[in-house]
């Protein structure tokens, strides 16, 4: 055994990888393929959103050169968007509490927290739909100007990711209700959590870059 090996104290249990994730295979790095693969997927997602955020910055403030239509300052309702951002942040908390509950084998709390996470996500999406509707009524659309194109594309794609996350969370809730999600499947919950936290950190940057940074 190398110097890097760790011997856990008596009573501490570390199960082999195939004990989690419902028969997940372990890679030669000491982690399961599912988790390693999902981190790689998140890397590609980071590049995906990076491209859209960069595009938003590239076209930001260029409308006055040759296009009309409403401008960000005329549309944004910062207190409202701050509330929806707060809700999304809280959903990350309920997500990790759901993971902690399933790891402890507390299925009742797991269902409460996973449902709370999905409901927070739905509230966030509801707020986004309301915001989009309001902006459209004010005359902003995908075609009205560069701000409209980049804003709706960036925030809409993020909203689509949140929607996928909600469906994923509800499917975990349904599996738990059917008794098909034991504490041995906690890695499945952890991977769903990684996705959920990823959409949260993307929003952290969108909220700052799109809504809070002063227009030049």
């Amino acid at each position: 055994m190398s110097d890097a090996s760790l011997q856990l104290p008596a009573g501490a249990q570390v199960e082999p990888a195939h004990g989690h994730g419902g028969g997940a295979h372990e890679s030669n790095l000491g982690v399961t393929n599912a988790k390693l693969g999902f981190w790689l997927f998140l890397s590609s997602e980071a590049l995906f959103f990076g491209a859209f955020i960069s595009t938003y910055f590239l076209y930001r403030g260029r409308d006055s050169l040759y296009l009309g239509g409403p401008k960000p300052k005329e549309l944004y309702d910062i207190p409202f968007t701050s509330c929806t951002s707060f809700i999304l942040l809280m959903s990350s908390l309920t997500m990790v509490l759901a993971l902690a509950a399933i790891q402890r084998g507390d299925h009742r709390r797991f269902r409460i927290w996973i449902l709370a996470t999905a409901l927070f996500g739905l509230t966030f999406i509801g707020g986004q739909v309301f915001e989009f509707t309001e902006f459209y009524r004010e005359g902003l659309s995908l075609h009205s100007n560069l701000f409209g194109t980049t804003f709706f594309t960036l925030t809409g794609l993020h909203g689509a990711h949140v929607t996928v996350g909600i469906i994923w969370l509800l499917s975990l809730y349904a599996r738990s209700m059917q008794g098909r999600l034991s504490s041995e499947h906690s890695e499945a919950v952890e991977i769903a959590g990684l996705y959920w936290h990823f959409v949260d950190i993307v929003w952290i940057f969108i909220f700052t870059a799109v809504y809070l940074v002063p227009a030049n």
Partner: protein
Amino acid sequence: MSDEPTEVEEPADGGGAVLTRDDVSRELAQHPERLPMLPGELRPHPTPRQYVLIAVVLVVITALEVGASYLEGDVNSNLIIIVLTVMAAVKFFLVVAWYMHLRTDLLIFRRMFITGLLLAGAVYMIALLSLHAFANGRGGG
């Protein structure tokens, strides 16, 4: 990785010894409420209490961010942009380290993440600079 259930062996590519046997023993003894470890973890996940504390910090930073955005016009806008960027970065790293568990997972995840982050940041910054995205005098928004 050993097949023995009570041994955690760092993989060859795992990036050096971070914890000693005594560290793990001490940590588990001090925090009996800690969760059982999953494959790919060096240390147990944080406790629910720690999760809540992180959430409180995130909410406070978000409130400060919103407050800072209202200083536009009173304070140099470049200063506001720097402050907002720093606060967003702090929130980002708190979520990644505590909620996505990079703090407690094997070093291979941290290395993959930081390498990807630096590469993506460099690529997009080069693209934006070459397209003059930050040039002055291109019209107001």
